[in-house]
């Protein structure tokens, strides 16, 4: 979907601080310290109308250290998509959260944090989403090596380590819960939550 000239010009006007804007491929590059106002402006302008955050992800750059965030934002009325790149350097993996602008950013940003360790400032619920909180690695970073050969050799140790970690975490979790349920044995809250977990 190529952009109309009017839209391309409008985006140039709305985002003067962009590092680069390629109207041909509809690719916009922003600095890491961009303000969310840019996205709000692109969303609310009737010509650009970029209301639909269809995809948010990241990838590790090949030539240098660092992670680049990718936002695919679309307009459902004008049927065009703009790709926004935000390159981040290794020592500053932090950007503004887009959750106030697009609700859809909420989980997708959490996933990027989970997989790449990029922090999103102002995110309402900044936790890992897919992995356990006890995991101390960011799996999609290239320094986390997943070599089948290595993996098969170390399979036993890795597994033991992982299971031990989970066991320790679950024991830790169980301790305060058990203490509190003793205190308020009649409280329906803890009873219900336990029942639910079992069924």
């Amino acid at each position, binding site marked *: *979907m190529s952009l109309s000239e009017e839209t391309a010009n409008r985006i140039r006007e709305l985002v003067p601080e962009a590092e680069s804007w390629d109207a041909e491929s509809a690719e916009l590059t922003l600095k890491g310290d961009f303000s969310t106002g840019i996205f709000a402006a692109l969303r609310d302008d009737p010509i650009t109308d970029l*209301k*639909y*955050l*269809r*995809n948010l*992800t990241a*990838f*590790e750059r*090949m030539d240098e250290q660092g992670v680049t965030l*990718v936002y*695919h934002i679309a307009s*459902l009325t004008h*049927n065009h998509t703009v*790709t926004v790149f935000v390159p981040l350097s290794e020592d500053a993996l932090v950007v503004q959260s887009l959750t106030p602008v*697009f*609700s*859809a950013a*909420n*989980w*997708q940003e959490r*996933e990027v944090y989970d*997989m790449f360790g990029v922090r999103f400032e102002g995110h309402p619920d900044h936790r*890992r*989403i*897919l*992995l*356990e909180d006890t995991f101390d690695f960011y*799996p*999609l970073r290239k320094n*986390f090596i*997943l*070599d*089948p050969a290595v993996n098969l050799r170390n399979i036993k140790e890795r597994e033991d380590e992982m299971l031990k970690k989970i066991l320790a975490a679950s024991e830790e979790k169980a301790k305060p819960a058990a203490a509190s349920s003793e205190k308020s044995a009649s*409280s*329906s*809250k803890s009873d*219900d*939550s336990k*029942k*639910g*977990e079992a*069924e």
Partner: protein
Amino acid sequence: MSSIEKNSVLERRIDSLLTDEITINFGPQHPSTHGVLRLEAKASGEVITAITPHLGYLHRGVEKNLESKEFLQGIPLLDRCDYLSSMFNSYIMAACVEELTEIEVPRRAEWIRVVAMELNRIASHLLWWGTFCLDLGASSPLLYAFRDREDVIDLLELISGARLLYNYIRPGGVRGDVTPEFMKKLEGFTNRFPPYIDEYEELVTGNAIFIERVTNVGVISKERAVNWALSGPMLRGSGVNWDLRINEPYSAYPEFTFDAAVEEGCDVMARYRVRMMEMRQSNRMLKQAVEGLPEGSHTAKVPTSVRCKKGMTYRRIESPRGELGGFMITDQDKAKKPWRFHLRAPSFANLAAIEEMSKGYMVADMIAILGSIDIVLGDVDR
């Protein structure tokens, strides 16, 4: 004490009697979460005030594994992400590779792909219909749905050899050509299927209890649906006419005539109607394929080990659950493996809105709302 006074004392007591907010835990092992989803719902009385979903119980690290696999080896892995619509997942990998290799796909291959994908859409929607009704307490629709789903599965088995995870669509085309036997059976199915849907509608759609349970439940407005980036039947059920098969055409879809199913209701009923209508539209497309399947080859000439040029692409298609996107980067020319492959999972994006949709409704309504999203946990967690 007079009786009037007594009553007022009692009334005052009832007013001042406040119950605690209780936490209700669904899952990760619960039949109506359609897999291993865990929902932590807070309810005041029976009304939901907050929901915290906990994901990742089926996180299998597919995206990382794809980075160490060749493109063709990646397809089975992707098949297992959204296991109810694995044809679509295969297609997304094939489409990404085709874009970065500039393989020309023969017209017949694209038509066969559409046939395979629409059959898969019917199978997926049938399973959704059966389990959704089961969630609402009706157990016989499941048996009807599976009676006809087996019909579809037989057809898919004929072309791909598998019942659930097909690994059929490949870069350049499809793995095997369709046989005359398959076309004959497909024709039979397309004639049999519309009366089946009528039967479903008679059985469930007009049922007064069903209508009560799903109308004006889980309402999400058009604007909010767009803001949440919902897609597929969720978006079209909120009155947004956005079907990637029409708006961003791919494969052989421009050659078919069909309508996007759009409903204005914004509630569970609207999503239900959209899916029922989609099954009819899929059947319509299959009919057209029976009549006009072009001659030619079922695949382009593709080397066993496909090599892509350096580049980046984001391809998206309309899966039964919504926008299924594949974001692929290769790091060098003649790349054998992707540098990064991201699957934009429709269930993941749609499930994110569950809290907003269920707030203020009853606990039992939450099950209906969750069912209407049609999540597949393999797709949510990947």
